[in-house]
């Protein structure tokens, strides 16, 4: 293995051919400032210490590794789960927002903005903003504010303002556009707290760094459990932040890194190179280069792109990416629930579905597999119920 597969990007923010900084000139100074601020903070032991302390005291880190004995037996594998569902607000999203809000304070800014799809990243951002005393505005497509009313309410409870985005397809990608448009008007006092390993440099790298605590904890915990390096690490991929975070702990080991995309949002499997939201990456686009909407049962995977580092890892052959269809996901969610007493998020259920499908196939029997359990399924209960009852 290459000794530093998931190192920093080059000085133009590129991972191989991907990444970069495709933003309006108005945002260039903010991106450059952010890059400097992050570099400075991330090499400042006091900042790193504070980031870790907040994650520990406030967000409940380290999250445990849970052996999954009954599912393991069912599938003929040795399965372990990294329990990001137990982190505050119910997913890995909190790791990133705590890093970014601490950085916001350090940069002397008083406000954050964020995009959100189903609301997970929005709730996490509103949470961290409340904790740090920052004001917060979240952009959310109108389609999503309507189908995720409760998450809108949660953000408001946490003191955030939620802006319903009526442009374009009125979903996540338009919320990103709108957040970027807003950012142009307020870069001086506002940080754009992006929700995944995407966007212009330094975001993909910075978010990966903030999420890499998942992987570094997990590899140490597996060592302590006597498991050592697993044969494979499997994570679902929307923008790719939970995957990047867990992969980072295993990239320099002899472990297969497996990202599972939603079939209807499979930027690696079905996309092609392009530029969107400040980055060059793999995107779902039509024959003319217009960006296509992603369609997945899970709102968190409903993004037509993927973080540039994943595009690079795929091109470099270091990580493998597969797609799982909506039809496989509900069964996988039930399977984990009933065998292990953990209801995963629909996003996470994609990773479970792939493991269940490939046990004995792409995952040889007896393999040791770490599932990154990126989030809890409470948020999805109503939707899953409607699907199972044939109402959706």
């Amino acid at each position, binding site marked *: 293995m290459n000794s530093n597969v998931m190192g920093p990007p080059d000085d*133009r923010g590129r991972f191989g051919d991907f990444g970069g900084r495709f933003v309006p000139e*108005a945002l260039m100074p903010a991106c450059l400032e952010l890059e400097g601020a992050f570099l400075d903070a991330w090499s400042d032991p006091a900042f790193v210490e504070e980031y870790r302390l907040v994650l520990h005291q406030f967000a409940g880190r380290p999250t445990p590794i849970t052996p999954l004995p009954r599912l393991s037996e069912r599938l003929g594998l040795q399965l372990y789960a990294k329990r990001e569902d137990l982190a505050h607000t119910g997913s890995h999203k909190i790791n990133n927002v705590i890093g970014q809000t601490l950085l916001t304070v350090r940069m002397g800014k008083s406000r954050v903005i964020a995009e959100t799809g189903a609301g997970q990243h929005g709730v996490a951002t509103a949470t961290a903003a409340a904790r740090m005393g920052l004001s917060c505005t979240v952009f959310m497509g109108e389609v999503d504010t309507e189908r995720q009313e409760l998450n809108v309410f949660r953000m408001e409870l946490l003191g955030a303002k939620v802006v319903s985005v009526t442009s374009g397809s009125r979903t996540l990608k*338009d919320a990103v556009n709108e957040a970027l448009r807003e950012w142009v008007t307020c870069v001086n006092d506002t940080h754009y707290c992006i929700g995944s390993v995407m966007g212009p440099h330094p975001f993909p790298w910075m978010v990966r760094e903030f999420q890499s605590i998942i992987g570094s904890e997990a590899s140490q915990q597996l060592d302590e459990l006597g498991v050592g390096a697993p044969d494979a690490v499997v994570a679902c991929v929307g923008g790719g932040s939970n995957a990047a975070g867990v992969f980072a702990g295993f990239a320099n080991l002899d472990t297969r890194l497996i990202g599972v995309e939603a079939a209807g949002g499979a930027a690696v499997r079905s996309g092609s190179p392009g*530029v969107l*939201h400040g980055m060059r990456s793999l995107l779902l686009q039509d024959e003319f280069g217009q*960006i296509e909407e992603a369609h997945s049962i899970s709102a968190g995977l409903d993004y037509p792109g993927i973080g540039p580092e994943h595009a690079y890892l795929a091109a470099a052959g270091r990580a493998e990416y597969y797609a799982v269809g909506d039809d496989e996901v509900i069964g996988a969610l039930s399977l984990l629930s009933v065998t292990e007493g953990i209801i995963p998020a629909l996003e996470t259920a994609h990773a479970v579905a792939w493991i269940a499908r490939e046990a004995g196939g792409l995952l040889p029997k007896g393999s040791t597999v770490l599932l990154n359990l990126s989030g809890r399924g409470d948020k999805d209960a109503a939707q899953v119920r409607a699907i199972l009852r044939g109402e959706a």
Partner: protein
Amino acid sequence: MKSLEVHLRALRDSGRKALVPYLVAGSTPDWIRHVEAAVLGGADAVEIGVPFSDPMMDGVVIQEASQRALERGTTLESVCEELESLDGEIPLIAMTYYNLFLHYGLERAAGRLRQAGLSGAIVPDLPLEESDEWRAACDANDVATIYLVAPSTPTPRAREIVTRTQGFAYATARMAVTGAASDDGEGPRVAATLRAAGDVPVYVGVGITTPEQAKRAASYSDGVIVGSALVKLVLNGATTSEVERFVGSFRAAID
């Protein structure tokens, strides 16, 4: 020096303030007639927006026009084809997002623009640092690469942009996406920085909504770009003569 720049420098040196109306290609069936009307109204160049699904730098008006254009099946290719039918004398400048060129192929795209009579291109999500490949493609096809400068751009960086931009330097008057505004914003400061930094013409855009604003902007720059205000008129169903009159009112104000 690109032909666009030769042309625009000559215009400036003649003492005439440049008027550059912006239209979204394909947003109405008769958009080509609007381009002609803009010319009749006194445009010195026309900025042709090629619609993109995710116009990150644009406000609601241009978003809406772009969406209508996309729904009408507008593509980079269709825009170029329709423009070929135009028997124009004055320069056309493409404005769109990078992905459309990238997807079309950079060399091929720049060639296609030139062939269609577009002699310059503004790509708002392509800052200096990312534009080498695109500029090379443009250079090979006599398409000018026009850069924007924002109020947030530090002076040293603004200077560098001035040395790189071709045709003119686009001074954005405010920290905002395209759309209506009522004041001059930071246009005077940005334009002054750019004029001090080099010799290229400096045009002011973003938020120029009325002839009075345009007049003020022209007083401290070499030209003005009128975008959302005109696009809004078109969205509201303007006839070609209304477009001509509207552009004419700006012409009168800045002359």
